[in-house]
């Protein structure tokens, strides 16, 4: 049974008739020769390699620096599509932050029985250590990456929330640079919203959330685990473009609950840390004592209110996939309105009925670890072997709390250079939402990941995925053809 997938340029027409508004893009794809497209794509990838835009794949030689494959054909959102997406995103992230403040504070949502207490308090993502400590300005998830998929012309679903340290934003920016250089004619066809305001927005957000003790010009830094980390390029790229120091743990010292960085002129006080280190490694005094990446005393300084951590520790509870399944209720609880962005239907395997259903339908479902990420530890039923399914069945039975199941989604496709021609390949989308005291803000764009293998639904870079630029069109961008 061939499943019908929605193509973002061709709709369901199988390449015969573009969707309204996409006529000129379709023409561009048809009229630009394939060798020319491939040449430009190769040029973009060569530039990425020269710049050192690489990532390391865990489990490989630590020196294995790879670039993420880049596809030259962009993915396009109309202004109206983006409008409703960004409203939904901002609503969702607002609710996420209120939820985090609540569960580490008054716990009203638990008392009101909206989310089961044991699911939150007994969750590995729940961090008792920060319980009762309100972060500066009450914000936890300053930077969120919301993973979304599209299944039809008007259905966008949230796949998961990344409230810890979402990565990938440098690809949004670098992919756009490459497109501007290599396909300038596309920007004549379309008026595209710029994405380069992201770094300014990030700086403004960081400054807005500085502790009250900080000066008018707070000292902001980006804390990286170091240059062996798979996302190091992004860390250095962001620090450079935001205009802040890129620090490693050894560059920071905590003295009397104040964080300082070591400079050639002596110590300089640090007010805001955009940390790209997981909670567990942040501070060996309170989390993992064997962590060499962390800064001893950092959490004490944070509790003393002397430094803002972006994102605040404890946010992992919001990434949990079982908590995710309650997001519609959570959004409604805090914002008083229905969630504008729907969830994917989710079976929580901790519930006996859901477990039973999941076990009976393993071959059709996608099963995920509640605390997994990066495409690791998941089962895509329809494309898995019997052994893989049997393995998951055993794992599920042993620890039903650890898993959720979702239907296998008909992810939309976008035309992509593949082999000799252009084929539809499945995509997802990760927009980035910033939350500061200056408001919640989504830069018009994001990271489109594409599963380069035919039929594959797994888009993670560690699993052979690539990226595309994501255009968001400006208002009144309709073309004559669309008005006919």
């Amino acid at each position, binding site marked *: 049974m061939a499943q019908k997938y929605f193509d973002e340029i061709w709709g369901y027409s199988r390449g015969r008739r573009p969707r309204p508004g996409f006529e000129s893009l379709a023409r561009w794809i048809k009229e630009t020769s394939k060798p020319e497209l491939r040449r430009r794509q190769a040029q973009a990838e060569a530039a990425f390699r020269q710049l*050192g835009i690489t990532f390391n794949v865990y489990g490989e030689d630590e020196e294995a620096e790879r670039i993420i494959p880049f596809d030259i054909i962009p993915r396009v959102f109309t202004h109206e599509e983006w409008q409703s997406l960004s409203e939904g995103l901002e609503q969702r992230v607002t609710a996420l932050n209120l939820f985090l403040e609540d569960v580490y504070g008054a716990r009203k949502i638990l008392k009101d029985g909206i989310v089961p207490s044991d699911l939150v308090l007994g969750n590995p993502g729940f961090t008792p250590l920060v319980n009762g400590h309100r972060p500066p300005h009450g914000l936890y998830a300053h930077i969120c990456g919301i993973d979304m998929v599209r299944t039809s012309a008007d259905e966008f679903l949230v796949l998961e929330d990344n409230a810890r340290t979402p990565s990938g934003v440098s690809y949004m920016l670098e992919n756009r640079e490459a497109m501007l250089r290599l396909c300038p004619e596309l920007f004549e066809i379309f008026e595209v919203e710029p994405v380069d305001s992201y770094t300014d927005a990030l700086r403004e957000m960081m400054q807005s959330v500085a502790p009250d003790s900080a000066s008018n010009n707070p000292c902001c830094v980006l804390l990286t685990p170091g240059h062996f980390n798979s996302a190091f390029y992004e860390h250095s790229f962001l620090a450079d473009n935001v205009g802040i120091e890129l620090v490693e743990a050894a560059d920071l010292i905590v003295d009397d609950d104040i964080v300082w960085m070591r*400079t050639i*002129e002596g110590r300089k006080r640090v007010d805001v840390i955009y940390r790209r280190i997981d909670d567990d490694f942040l501070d060996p005094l309170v989390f993992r004592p064997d962590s060499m990446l962390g800064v001893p005393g950092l959490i004490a300084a944070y509790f003393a209110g002397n430094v803002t951590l972006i994102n605040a520790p404890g946010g992992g509870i919001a990434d949990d996939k079982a908590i995710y399944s309650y997001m519609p209720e959570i959004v409604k609880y805090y914002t008083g309105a229905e969630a504008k962005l729907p969830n994917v239907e989710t079976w929580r395997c901790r519930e006996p009925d859901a477990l039973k259903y999941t076990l009976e339908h393993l071959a059709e479902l996608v099963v995920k670890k509640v605390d997994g990420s990066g495409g690791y530890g998941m089962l895509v039923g329809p494309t898995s072997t019997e052994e893989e399914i049997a393995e998951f069945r055993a794992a599920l039975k042993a620890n039903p709390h650890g898993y959720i199941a979702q239907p296998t989604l008909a992810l939309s496709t976008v035309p992509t250079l593949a082999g000799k021609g252009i084929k539809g390949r499945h995509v997802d989308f990760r927009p980035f939402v910033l939350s500061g005291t200056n408001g919640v803000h989504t830069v018009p764009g994001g990271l489109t990941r594409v599963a380069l293998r035919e039929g594959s639904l797994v888009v993670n870079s560690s699993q052979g995925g690539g990226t595309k630029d994501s255009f968001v069109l400006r208002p009144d961008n309709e073309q004559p053809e669309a008005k006919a």
Partner: protein
Amino acid sequence: MLARTASYLYWIGRYVERAEFTARLVEATVRLDSLSARPAGEGAWESALAVASSADDYAATGETVNPTNVANFMMLAENNSNSVRNCLYSARMNSRAVRTALTREGWESINRAWLGLRDRSAVGGTQATINLIEALKAETRGFEGAIHRMLRQESQFFLRLGACIERADNMARLIDVKYHLILPEGEEVGGLIDRDQWSTILQTASANTAFRWLYRDGLSPSRVVEMLVLRRELPRSLAATADELVGILDALGKATGFQGEADRMARLLQQRMRKTRIREIMAGGLHEYLQAFIKENRLLSQAITRQFRFD
């Protein structure tokens, strides 16, 4: 600027300089050994190891001293922390860690130099060795060019500071090689082999032509030493390097607003070199002079490390 960033930049400067110097040393030794009509043989390779202060490390490998073994050891060996490959590896790793403090050109020349050596398992025959070294020299020249096109601010100062300290050390060691080179029995000081050795030193310092320009009246040890140690016209001489060190430290002082022990030591070194005359050096013993210089340079490096809080 972060102290760590400054320290990485300083060491990038040092490692690239060391890589280039080591490669030049191998090149000159190849010439001395095989292109000369009177092969100086193993002695040349032993002295090359001595100059690079790798003699003990090499002895530890248990390999016999022959051109191929030593060239491989100095260029590529992973168990030789001063091999060109290891220097470039360290320079590249440091560059990656402070990628944004470098310009794109600077990063690319280091990256290319590293990629050119990364997968080499042996230097090959004489011609292949020379070709490899030529390619490498082109990249390090490119790096030097890139440094000089960088904004004149702290990043550039630390890169150049490292390069200067390393160059001073390497140059002093190179001149001192004559102390280690033993003339074969029957050969006289001032004889053909002796002259070949001095001429090789000039070659390593890429100062052969410069010498002809400065000294029309022919090769002599004290003239070669004078040029390499005291002549400011030669940009890589010890005196010129001392001048450059003082200049960079001044610029850093202006940028950071304070000066310290390193500034005082560098100025002292500069003043003393201005007053020194070649006959004093030769009379007091060249080897002793150079050893004292190397030690002073090392102390200066330590003062820089303290002053800018590298540790």
